């Protein structure tokens, strides 16, 4: 299975949507850097991200959430990881696809 990483804001690039459209059931998506804005409640993208969670594992890098002051706005069910958790995810998956 693939670990997809998304590092761009969904408001600025279509990376999130392209990634979700190509992530197979059982794969994982990790939001990092400005990609973390996809993991927040009450945005234009929240519903789409929530429904993606039905068959994709969603993760977010907590230090990037905190840096941007949005740690309390996370969509329920998205799992927070630290840098060590990021490394674990890369080793647990066969491949990493970094969507830029």
């Amino acid at each position: 299975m693939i670990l997809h990483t998304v590092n761009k804001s969904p408001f600025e690039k279509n990376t999130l949507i392209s990634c979700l459209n190509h992530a197979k059931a059982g794969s994982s998506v990790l939001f990092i850097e400005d990609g973390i804005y996809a993991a927040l409640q009450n945005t234009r993208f929240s519903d789409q991200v929530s429904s993606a969670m039905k068959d994709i594992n969603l993760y977010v890098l907590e230090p990037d959430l905190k840096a941007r002051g949005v740690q309390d706005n996370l969509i329920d069910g998205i799992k927070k990881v630290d840098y060590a958790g990021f490394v674990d995810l890369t080793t647990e998956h066969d491949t990493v696809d970094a969507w830029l």
Partner: protein
Amino acid sequence: MSEEMYDDDEYDGVIKKFMYVNRKAPYGTIYALESLEVVLIGAAFDQDISLVFMDDGVYQLKKGQDTKETEIKNFSPTYRALEMYDVEKLYVSKDSMDERGLSEDDLIVPVEVMSSEKMADLMEEQDVIFSF
């Protein structure tokens, strides 16, 4: 002759209307920090400064930024210091706030929340516009 020009701490040259349009989220790119630096330079020359925050730029003003774990500089307290440089016209796009589920209470500084139409009028009044 130049004595007359510099006999006073206050800049007495031409004052222009400068607008800084901020459309990028902080940290992911350098634009937000660079904009802030240029704003402070303009303020040192006593210009008539307006700051606009729209699109992902509204995230620059989000309360509670804590960059400790990322080991990058948290420059958000600087927005609170702008008042001391007489930079007091901060305008935020209502549409951009709405699509991100943000309200005025989420922001670290007092701002005027503005419609796109009013923002467009304000842009029309400027002498210089810097876009970041």
